[in-house]
């Protein structure tokens, strides 16, 4: 007869995640009685900080929300404000914004795969230990990350908290010589991205299929990134301005990040949700790589997220090349903006998933009210749901250190950015 097991697991500080959080799990009689993903970073109050500021200051302020995905915050903010002011940016600016966004996907995904997630699959504790076992793979990852940063710098002047984006377009157009030099580097990196996709597809991926709702931007003619309508795997398709009618945020006592819900339930956003909803929109060369990795869509195994990220790196390289190969600078990188009293919302696909902004402005374009819903807030309830199912499937009778490692790996599948979401992991396991 198996002895009833009561255990309390506490992971007081989650490592290899962006920001600070903790996980508390209470196991009673062999079942999870309570599970809390605690996000205890203090609220950063960016939405309040924006109030009273000029619309022109918003792109530079929201870039400070995250050092990893500042482009996502900028792109979402400027589009929400352009919607509020009735501004239509040029096709040139739309294309260049998408190219810049590709840079952020490449650098963020490369950082997450190599520095944070890959050690989970390869039996090492850190990228430093991984560097001893597979130095070529880590060098490749760092090279791709640096290349993504270069793409951001091309348009933003610098990769961390870039400054090139403005409401209406860009402050300046890059020189064709600089664009051509970068396109050459992007071409040269394609074989590395292919190797990366095959490398991650060869990882020992746990078999952990689950049922969940996917939410991502959708566009009929392309893999949505910088624009689109919000779609869900149950058929929802709405404009960003309708977000609040379908998605809600609520506070939980154990987290300084709000929990988002869709139709009163948890949902997934991020690379795997994007692949599930938009896989058919990928260019043929990327679909061939996807097929070679063996991921069948829709994919219900969150551990395949690391492969999804590598697929998206390959896509982002190809997409940036497509846009920039025929680059011609614009004499008017930004259209004139006349502020007005209004309300505007927009959503884009940050590397971690859907990012939604909404602003209300006065007649001089000053921010009266701001709402920012980052992807980690949206994934929090799904992470808790996944943790419960994954740990039970893994076996709650396992030693505490194994449960802790599995719990951390599950969380890292989502690449949570706690610093962005506060408004992340220490594991506390209470087993009695």
């Amino acid at each position, binding site marked *: 007869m198996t002895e009833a097991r009561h255990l309390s697991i506490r992971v007081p500080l989650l490592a290899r995640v962006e920001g600070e959080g903790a996980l508390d799990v209470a196991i009673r009689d062999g079942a999870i009685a309570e599970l809390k993903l605690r996000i205890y970073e203090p609220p950063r109050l960016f939405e309040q900080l924006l109030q009273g500021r000029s619309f022109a200051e918003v792109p530079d302020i929201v870039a400070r929300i995250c050092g990893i995905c500042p482009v996502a915050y900028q792109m979402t903010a400027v589009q929400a404000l352009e919607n509020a002011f009735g501004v239509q940016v040029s096709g040139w600016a739309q294309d260049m914004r998408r190219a810049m966004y590709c840079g952020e996907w490449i650098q963020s995904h490369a950082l997450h795969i190599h520095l944070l997630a890959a050690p989970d699959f390869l039996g090492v*504790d850190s990228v430093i230990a991984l560097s001893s076992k597979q130095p070529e793979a880590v060098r490749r990852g*760092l090279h791709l990350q640096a290349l993504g*940063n270069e793409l951001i710098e091309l348009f933003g002047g610098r990769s961390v908290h870039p400054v090139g984006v403005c409401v209406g377009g860009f402050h300046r157009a890059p020189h064709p010589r600089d664009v051509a030099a970068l396109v050459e580097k992007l071409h040269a990196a394609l074989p590395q991205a292919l190797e990366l996709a095959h490398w991650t597809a060869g990882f020992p991926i746990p078999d952990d299929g689950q049922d969940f709702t996917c939410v991502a931007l959708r566009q009929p003619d392309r893999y949505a990134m910088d624009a689109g309508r919000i779609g869900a795997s149950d058929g929802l398709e709405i404009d960003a301005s309708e977000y609040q009618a379908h998605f809600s945020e609520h506070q939980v006592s154990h987290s300084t990040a709000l929990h988002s819900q869709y139709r009163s339930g948890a949902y997934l956003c991020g690379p795997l949700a994007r692949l599930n909803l938009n896989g058919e929109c990928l260019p043929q060369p990327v679909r061939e790589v996807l097929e070679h990795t063996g991921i069948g869509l829709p994919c219900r195994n969150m551990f395949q997220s690391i492969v999804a990220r590598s697929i998206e790196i390959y896509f982002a390289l190809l997409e940036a090349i497509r846009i920039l190969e025929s680059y011609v600078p614009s004499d008017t990188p930004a259209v004139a903006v006349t502020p007005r009293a209004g309300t505007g919302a927009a959503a884009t696909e940050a590397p971690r998933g859907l990012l939604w902004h909404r602003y209300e402005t006065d007649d001089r374009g000053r921010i009266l009210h701001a709402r920012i819903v980052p992807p980690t807030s949206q994934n929090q309830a799904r992470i808790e749901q996944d943790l419960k199912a994954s740990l039970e499937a893994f076996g709650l009778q396992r030693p505490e250190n194994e449960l802790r490692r599995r719990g951390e790996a599950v969380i890292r599948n989502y690449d949570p950015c706690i610093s962005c979401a506060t408004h992340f992991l220490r594991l506390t396991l209470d087993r009695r």
Partner: protein
Amino acid sequence: MKARTRILGVGSPFGDDRLGWIAVDLIRDSAWYRSRAAGSLSAQAFDRPGPALLAAMDGAAHAVLIDAMQSGAAPGTVRKVELDRLEISADRFASGHSLGLADTLILGKALGLLPPRITLMTVERGCEQSQDGLTAAVHAALLPLLKCVRACVNDEESVLDRPLFSGRPLP
């Protein structure tokens, strides 16, 4: 053309952590820096270490890293720390947001990405942190620090593996 010798100041806008930035500004403004042959020396400020710092050292023959430090020494103490004296455990690695200078150097060493010569120049930060600027002890250490950097770059033998300037506690 990328410079063979690169001075890299790491810091943030806050208090004594700004040291690396201020040192780089002073170096770039100096006649000594301007007198160097074009392309032989560069000085650059970084808002965080991490993979970008490894990329910044790529292809260099000598990297001089300047950063504020907290070791328990007297505030303002200037030191040259050898890479092999830095200790780090793998489980300290936390996130892409918090990859520290030591972590970055250990990672770079494991990957064989470090220049043949790295000199880490540090100044012990003050006890009281100011949001506005350097504390008096760290400010007083700037001139000795810059002399040490210059001597180091000039391959003068005055750069020793010991405290180079003993800072004094604030009165």
